[in-house]
């Protein structure tokens, strides 16, 4: 898109990326959904750095009003004419098509900028401050995010750990099923678990009509002194009437650096209601690339089927890094180099490796 912007920006076409709620929390840097506008603005500034594009960003409100107003898609695209009328829309961004659209609407440019000429200055994701993989991820069935409201105190400490709450299909539909509670450290607050302090614990408080197999939970003791893994729980719910919210209080120590630990007690209200803005978290193994799987997937983009990828066949994250990744400088990424790239991506995004591996 940056290439299209460089050609059509000078022709008075305005381009904006709209920063919205995360499509896949936990992926690509362990990011978690922000709770406040200030946190979302921080995400957007990071996105600007990671993408390296010069296209300006605007940031959706924390109630996701622009996403809702424009059809609730993760990567949709719109072209608006000078009168403010939508003249093109698509569910998935397609820069080559945007170029064709602008050629039709405004006219072609004399010299087209190619993607490989753009040379984006990409920055890496924010790193979590302590290792991951100390505490195995919880395996959970297919679940969907539910609406939960953090009780945010003005001028209070941030939510270093942020709750992700999900329900399985039975719980969602019938009020009887499994409830996932995961407390994920927000990498932007740079906190880690200091395992010399008492582990995270929570209590649930609800009306008599709500029946849970437990109303308290304590995270397991972790042998490593410090880690960044989520603290996860799977509860069995035998009755949760849709009109009954559940109040959750969580107590934990969040530590920044070696000395500074905050004792935190934070509250949420949970609703048995699907959260359409929660995004799809993949849980265990999210973001982890198996070298062989990765190479196979990437070679699916090998349009001339010669078993290797040239720059014009490279896509996504590979393209701006192509020259660096082409270890032997032969102009191709081959199977072996692909496997090395998966290791690079794993170190780049810091996923916790799946426990079964």
């Amino acid at each position, binding site marked *: 898109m940056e290439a299209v912007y460089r050609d059509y920006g000078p022709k008075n076409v305005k381009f904006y990326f709209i920063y919205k709620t995360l499509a896949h929390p936990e992926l690509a840097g362990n990011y978690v959904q922000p709770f406040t506008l200030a946190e979302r603005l921080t995400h957007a500034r990071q996105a600007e750095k990671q993408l390296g594009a010069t296209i300006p960003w*605007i940031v959706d409100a924390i109630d996701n009003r622009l996403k809702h*107003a424009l059809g609730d898609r993760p990567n949709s695209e719109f072209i608006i004419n000078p009168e403010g009328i939508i003249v*093109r829309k698509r569910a998935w961004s397609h820069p080559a098509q945007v170029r064709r659209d602008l050629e039709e609407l405004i006219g072609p440019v004399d010299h087209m900028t190619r993607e490989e000429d753009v040379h984006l200055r990409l920055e890496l994701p924010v790193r979590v401050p302590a290792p991951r993989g100390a505490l195995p991820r919880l395996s959970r069935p297919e679940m969907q995010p539910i609406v939960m409201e953090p009780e945010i105190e003005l001028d209070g400490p941030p939510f270093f750990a942020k709750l992700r709450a999900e329900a399985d299909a039975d719980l969602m539909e019938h009020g009887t099923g499994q409830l996932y509670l995961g407390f994920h450290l927000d990498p932007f607050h740079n906190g880690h678990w200091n395992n010399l302090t008492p582990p995270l614990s929570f209590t649930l408080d609800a009306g008599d009509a709500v029946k849970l197999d437990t109303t308290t939970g304590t995270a397991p003791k972790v042998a490593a002194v410090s880690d960044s893994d989520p603290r996860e729980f799977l509860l069995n719910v035998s009755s949760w009437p849709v009109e009954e919210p559940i109040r959750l209080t969580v107590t934990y120590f969040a530590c920044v650096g070696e000395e500074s630990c905050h004792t935190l007690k934070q509250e949420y209200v949970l609703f048995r209601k699907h959260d359409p803005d929660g995004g799809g978290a993949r849980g265990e193994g999210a973001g982890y690339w198996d070298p062989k799987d990765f190479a196979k997937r990437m070679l699916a983009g090998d349009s001339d089927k010669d078993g290797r990828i040239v720059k014009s066949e490279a*896509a996504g994250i590979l393209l701006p890094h192509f020259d660096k990744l082409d270890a032997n400088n032969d102009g191709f990424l081959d199977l072996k180099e692909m496997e090395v790239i998966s290791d690079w991506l794993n170190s780049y995004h810091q996923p916790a490796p799946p426990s079964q591996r």
Partner: protein
Amino acid sequence: MRFISMCCVAAVISLCTVDAEAQRMQQKEKQFLKESPLIGEPLPDVTVYSLDGEPFTTANLRGHYTVLTFGCLT
């Protein structure tokens, strides 16, 4: 380059489409075209924020063509 693929490695996979995947995407695009707001309708008037946290009103996007693309870090 598709924007999402820059910010989401998982989406890189989606670029490596097979025919069935391409058909599924086409269906999704057709469905999206039927949903509000439609082509020919005004851009909804919504106030969001600039990267500095200043209010940004979509109603001000007048007098020039505008390309809007949704994205995120993941």
